[in-house]
């Protein structure tokens, strides 16, 4: 996955944790923006 199989022991472990860290940051930024944009629309939809 993501070519990290070619890495050895510690490097592979570090790469795995790095991927999770980057994913968490990207998701936080992305979903926060999405929530800000979509929240008013969603509220109007529920209230309708």
């Amino acid at each position, binding site marked *: 996955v993501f070519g990290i199989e070619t890495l050895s022991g510690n490097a592979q*472990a570090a790469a*795995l*944790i790095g*991927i*999770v860290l980057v994913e*968490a940051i990207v*998701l*936080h930024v992305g979903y926060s923006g999405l929530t800000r944009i979509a929240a008013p629309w969603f*509220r109007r939809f529920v209230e309708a």
Partner: protein
Amino acid sequence: MEVLGVGITMIALFVGFGLLIGILFGFFGMGGSFLVTPALLVMGYPSRVAVGSGLAFVFGTSVIATIKHRNLGQVDYKLGVSMIIGTTLGIEVGKEIVLHLEELGLAGGIISVTYVLLLGGIGAFVTYEALKGDGGGGMDHDVDEDAEIDADDIPDIAKRIQSYRVPPMLTLRGGVQVSLWMVLAVAFVTGLLSGFLGVGGGFIRMPALFYLIGVPVPIAVGTDLFEIVFSGGIGSFLYAQSGGVDLSIVVPLLAGSALGAQLGSAATSIVDEEGIKVYFGLMLLGGAVAVAFRQVGESFGIPVLNTVSFVLIIGAALLVSGAVVYSSLAAIRREDAGQAGMGAD
């Protein structure tokens, strides 16, 4: 069709399960990740992968939670770093125990029994407190940053532990002084549980910081989150070294839970947590029963119990997160109807 080496159905299942867990974590501030490792064990993943991937998931989730809280000034870095040292040792010992038990073929059974006792105990406590109605049993991450506990509110056990003045002494935020050795001991025990069960350990560490060390609740919450980033990161790194972290599990779980956490934390501002907490306690009890069913099914060769167990875990998470979403929608509609009524007057 396959993504990350697994079928699209499994990916969808993990994203959906992550979404449910994220709603629970975002709303209650605790407990979501507690269901991941048992679910992975029930799905037939080896103990090492279930625990390692559970820890990696906890790491990702706590990174997101810590980013949210980073500006609240609730982290005692001196305490946090001291905790990390004790926790790392604890995680390493916990991991070695799991690997040793795995060699003996006992890991799944012993981890399951420990889970049943812990989930059952905490579930019973939360349910009891919710029914009693005094608001206990949860771990509120959204506390007032200026809130400080009164000296009189420091628990008696914490006062006693603070009285053991074995040098070196640590001066914590809020003026609390405590022996470094006491901090390391608490951190070691919570780290041991993290490494052994694949959980962040926050549900034990946060109360331990308050009840055993006497750290003010807001600082305990912030430091706990800071610490989970490291305990989860170190724990998952140690497991990743021995092939225990499976990205095909962690990536979709995290994708779902990050969205769920946004929804769950938004729901806290419109729904009364107390009304739902009893379901949360029952969900934990359901998780304990599910793990027990799986273990009995494996021990006595009754495969249907494994299916029942899986349905119980997913069903319990679905029920409580559904209750959160339903209550939120109902509250928005009530609020809207109230505003319309006032407008009509």
